[in-house]
Structures are given as C-alpha cells and as structure tokens.
C-alpha cells in the first residue's frame, strides 16, 4: 500500500518535471562555468595588474615626460641609464640593502621563531606584540625612525651623550653614505623580522613532536635535532618566505623615501626610489619607467634562485615526498 502510493507519487513527480532550459544547461556546462567564475578575477587582474605593468613597460621605451605622451625611442632610455653613475649607484645600494637585510632578518627571525615555539608564559600576548612592527603603517614607523636617526633630537644620542656620557657628540646617523645605509638596514630589519618570525613559527608548529621525541631517545643533541629535523622540514616554507622577503625588500620604497629620500648625495637611493624621483617629481616618465623595468630581470632571477634553489620539493609540484 505504502509502496504503491510512493511509486505513484514518484511517477507523478517525474511527469511534472520539465526538460532543462538552455540556461540551466549552459550553467551545467563545465567550461562555461569555469570561465564565468574566473571572469571577475581575470578582469581585476587585467585592469589593475596587467594594464599598469604593460603601460610601465611601454613607457620605458618612450621619451614620455609629464604632460607629453612621448614617442617610441627603442632602447634609448636604457642606453642612457648605462652611462648614468647615479643609476648604477642605486643598483649597488639595492643589492647591498636586499642582501644584508635578508640575511639579518632571517637569522633573527628564525631565532625568534624558535624562542616563541617554546612553552612560555603569556605566549599569545607575546606573539601579538612581536607582530607590532609589521602592523604599524610603514610611513608611521619610518617617521619614528627618522626621529631616532635625527642629528639633533635622536633618543639614542641623547641617552649615550646626555644620560650615560659615553659619547661627547651626537651621532650623525644619516650624514655619511655608509652610516646612512646601515641605519636604513636597521630600520628595515626591525620592520621585517615579525613577518619572518611568525611565518616560520607557523612552519615550526607543523613539525610533529614525535620526530623530536624519537631523536631524543636516539640520543641526538640539540644541534643535531635542529640540523636534521627542524631545518629540512622547515625548508619548503623557508623558501617561500625567503622569496617573498627578497621581493619586498628589493622593491622597498616607503622606508627610504620617508627617511632619507635617497640622500646624502644618492647614497641611499634604491632603484624604486630613484625611479619615482626621476618619473614624478622630475617628470621624466620614460626614464623612471626604464629604471623600474630594469628591476624586473633582477626580481625574476632572485625569485628563481630562492624558490628553486632552496625549496625544490616534489610536493610543491603536487607529488608526494620521497
């Protein structure tokens, strides 16, 4: 009885059901669905990423200035930059800046991550505090550093000279080329450590404690555990963080522009700040764009080296680890 009633209702339902409309069929068609789902993202990328990048590259091959769209001049901008000592100085500065800060940031960041990975009181609170330099807008922290580096109002000089009496004159942090470069490196390291520490901490926490226990039972020393367990298992995330960090540092702009604007006599100009100075305040759009485009090969090379050199793991290509 029940079964027949059910059968009857099923029959009635299937009778009522209409054939799929073309719209339903269209949305059931997988390639169409994929395309339409990707459209907003693709549109955003095209408008806000591809177009500006393409325009930037095009400008690098023109003699455009602010107020004049310019004409195609081929490699003229690059040839002229080849003879420009200020450009090469900025390339040198960018390399020094990126290389030195990355090494220091990684050493200190890894150390901090290892410390934070221990069970310490107020763990969550301390981890939140560590992130602070990263949360503060760069321009704000740059202004704070600018005060710290001030030749007349520096808190560091004040403490060393007026409070402790260890020095007899205020420090000229940004007054000579190398002092200025090191000062900026310190500011960049301060700002960059939290990102590296917190990401590496996340990586550390994915390492199963059982591995350490087994190693401990086998009598491995602290250094051996670090060398044989922590480092290899951290390597994949290390390479990603390293790539990102190199990219961020190589293209840094705000910190340098807010603290020195490239001075004294261009000794702290990075390629990014020089590109801006030439293009916007100096109105030589073509030349500024050429400097920015000149960064691309370096960035691609740096990415390839760090990504494939350090972190080539099968799982990154979607396969299982050996």
């Amino acid at each position, binding site marked *: 009885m029940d079964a027949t009633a059910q059968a009857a209702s099923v029959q009635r339902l299937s009778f009522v059901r209409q054939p799929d409309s073309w719209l339903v069929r269209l949305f059931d068609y997988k390639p169409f669905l994929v395309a339409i789902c990707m459209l907003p993202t693709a549109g955003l990328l095209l408008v806000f990423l591809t177009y500006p990048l393409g325009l930037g590259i095009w400008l690098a091959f023109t003699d455009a200035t602010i107020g004049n769209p310019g004409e195609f001049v081929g490699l003229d901008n690059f040839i002229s930059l080849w003879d420009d000592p200020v450009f090469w100085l900025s390339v040198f500065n960018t390399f020094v800046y990126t290389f030195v800060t990355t090494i220091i940031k990684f050493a200190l960041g890894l150390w901090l991550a290892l410390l934070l990975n221990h069970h310490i009181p107020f763990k969550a609170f301390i981890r939140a505090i560590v992130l602070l330099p990263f949360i503060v807008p760069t321009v704000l922290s740059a202004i704070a550093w600018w005060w710290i580096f001030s030749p007349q109002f520096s808190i560091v000089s004040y403490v060393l000279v007026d409070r402790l009496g260890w020095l007899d004159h205020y420090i000229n942090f940004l007054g000579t080329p190398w002092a200025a470069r090191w000062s900026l490196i310190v500011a960049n390291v301060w700002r960059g450590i939290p990102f590296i520490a917190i990401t590496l901490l996340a990586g550390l926490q994915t390492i199963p404690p059982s591995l350490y226990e087994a190693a401990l039972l086998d009598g491995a020393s602290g250094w051996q555990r670090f060398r044989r367990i922590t480092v290899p298992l951290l390597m994949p995330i290390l390479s990603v963080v390293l790539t990102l960090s190199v990219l961020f540092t190589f293209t840094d702009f705000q910190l340098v522009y807010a603290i020195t604007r490239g001075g004294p006599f*261009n000794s702290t100009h990075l390629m990014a700040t020089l590109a801006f100075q030439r293009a916007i305040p100096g109105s030589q759009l073509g030349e500024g764009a050429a400097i920015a485009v000149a960064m691309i090969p370096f960035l691609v090379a740096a990415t390839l080296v760090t990504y494939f050199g350090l972190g080539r793991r099968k799982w990154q290509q979607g396969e299982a680890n050996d």
Partner: protein
Amino acid sequence: MTEFTRRESLTLTAAAIGAALLPSAAMADDDVPTAKVAPMDLKIEKGAELRVLRPAKFVEADEVWWKSNTKKYTDATGIPVKVDFLSWEDIRPQTAVTANTGAGPDIVIGFSSDPQVYAAKLIDITDLANYLGAKYGGWMRLAEIYGQKWGTKEWISIPVGGGNGPTVYRKSWVKEAGYDKIPNDLNDFLTLCQKLKQIGHPAGFSLGHALGDANGYANWLLWTHNAYLVDEKGKIALDSKETIAALKYATELQKHLIDGTLQWNDAGNNQAYIAGKIGLTFNGISIYYALKNSTDPNNQAIAADTLHQTQPFGQSKIAPQSATPMNAMVFKHTKYPNAAKDYLRFMMESEQYGPWLSNCIGYWSQSLKAYAKMKFWDADPNFAPFRTAMDTSFYDGFKGPVTASSSAVTANYTVVDMFASVVTGNATPEEAAKAAAKAAARYYKNA
C-alpha cells in the same frame, strides 16, 4: 560678510593675534595705491561653475583667507567655485593628468615651470595680466619671468605669489658673535658662522634631499659666486671656475655648521631653530610664524629674538635668491574661460588679495608691485625681506629658459648633491662639477 566655521574663526583670531593684529578685512582704502583703469569687460558664461586646484597651505591663514575670498566671489556672482587643496608633491602629477585628459579642474595653481610645460594647453590671459599690471603698478620681475610664455610678452599664467627663504637668525647670538646684522661679504659671513659655532649656536643649511631648503642653499652658493647652471641659451655652464670657487667656499663653511645638515629634510632647520640648536639658517616665514603663534613663552621669547634679512649678496649685484612662484593656469578645456579669468581677477583685486597677503605675513610675497606699499609690511621688521622677494631676476635654472628641464634638475637634487659630495670630502670640487654638469645635461638634452 562671510561665514566661518568655529574652527576657522578661531584660527583666524589666533593668526591675527599672532601677527600682532595686522590690518585685515578692515584694511584702509588707501593701503594699496591703484591706477584708474577701465574695468575688464568679461562676458561671463551662463550657468558657469569652476573647479580650482591649488597647493595646500603651510600657514593656516593662507587657506582660511583663500576660502573666504572664494566664498565672497560666489556670493557676489552666484558662480559656485570648488577649491581643492592638494599637497605640494601631488600638484605636478595632477596637473599632468588634467592636461593630458583635457578634463578636470578649470584652473590649476601650479609651480614654477608648469605653465611653460603646458603652454599649448592654456588659454592666453594677456588681457587679464595687462589689466592687473596697469591697475596695481606693474608686475614684479620674477612674476614676468614665470607668467609669460618664455621669450614672448604673452601671459599664460597669473603668478599669485612667491615663497622665498631669506636668512633667519637670533639677534642676540649674532650680536654676541660680533655682528649687528648679517654681512654681505662672503668672508665676513664665514667668520660670523665660525664665531657662532664657537659660542655654541652654530648656523645650519640643509644639503640633504630637502627639495626647498637644500636647493635654495645650493642656488645661493652658486649665485653668490657668479656661477650658474646654464647659459642664456640653455647650454650647461655648471663646470666652471666660479662653480669650483663656490664648492671650495661651501667646504670651508661646512666646517663651521652644525653637524647633520646632510640629513635634514625641509623640516630639519625649522625644528633645530625652534629648539634653539641653531642660531642662523635660510628659511621662509614658517619658523617665525610657528614661534609667533605658539602659546609657549619660550617660543615667544625666541620669536622676539628672531630677525629676517635677505641672504648675503657675495659677488652678486642683486639679492642672490629666488622665490618659488605659485602660478594660476586656465586650461583650454574649461567651458567657462571668462568666468575662470574673472575669478582670478577677483582674487587678485586689493579687497581680497590685501587681507590674504597680509595675513600670510610674508609666507607668500606679492607678485604685483602696488602690494609692496601695504602698511602691514612695516608692522614688523621681520617682514622686510619678503616684501621684495619677487623683485629678483634669479630663478630655478638661471640664466637659461624656464623649462621642464630646470625643474627636473631641481627635483633630482643635481646641484645639491654636487655640493654635498664635496663638503663631505667624497669628491674633489673638479670631479663633482664635471659629474654634476653631465648629470644636468641628461635633463637638458631634449630642451
């Protein structure tokens, strides 16, 4: 007459008190002598409305009075005017966008060489310039240089005012160093700076990447030694024996300055002066303005001890200083060119320009000669150098034509860095002059 918000009227009062109650809105009629000139017959378009872009204020009164004058214009004519105040560094890119797209503000008040760069896109305002010139005793020299299309008598912009940076110093300390005023002779000036350092109140001039201050100091060093960036035809003339002499003098002078001037930005000397760390520098009225308007008795005391004087002349016959002009351009894309011209005329007439100028107490210097006669200039001896600031034939990129190239050299600190590398011993004067001449040529190659 005009309505102010509470905040605006408060600042206005503060500014007025600070400036020792200058003649403001209730200015005497005879304060600005005017010639009898037939009023301009501008046929203002029906339904006109205007958008104006101008640089942001550095002294409060600048914006307060600009806005109230604009409101007065709207009340009188019914033409709505929207004024946007933009930070100085954003003016150039915005002007470029306006010029390239042929849309946006009807009037852009930009800087220095901008009208020359966009000359083809600006309406000719010779009639307005001639009317104002005839009525107000003629234009100051610097106004003519920047307002007219280079090498012609065609006016493409109305220079509204100029900002310059004369010597600012502490009276008592300069006296202690043995001088009653700042000597014009460069050797005496060197001795003065030396003595100031000996008594613990050194002088300081920025040679860092400080757009206004460092370029001002570098130009002063050049012009006092008869050196200049380019010749009359725009050919680079920097690598000269005069430049070498200027570099040697700067090196000598640097020994007697406060430490750290190579890292000063445009606020560096303001802060050091207000904190009493330096006794002498080159700057606009902003230091004095801040001191005067401070309620701190210490700052009031420093203000009372502060004097301004035109920069030392050295070998120059006229004051070796220029002013950064703020010049108004009317773009061809405007639908209401006559309304735009009428608005500018209104803002430059004595009823509006007078109170604006006098309340800025020298932050802007007048571009029309008659305004030099205003009584407020006598109210405080500190205003004297600003009264004549635009009476000069020095400008960025002197002696060549005013072009985008001269602005590019300024923006790239080419001359500043030449001095900075020599005074720190990182280059010899000869090397630096050659390198800077080559660097400057990069920007003049298309000129």
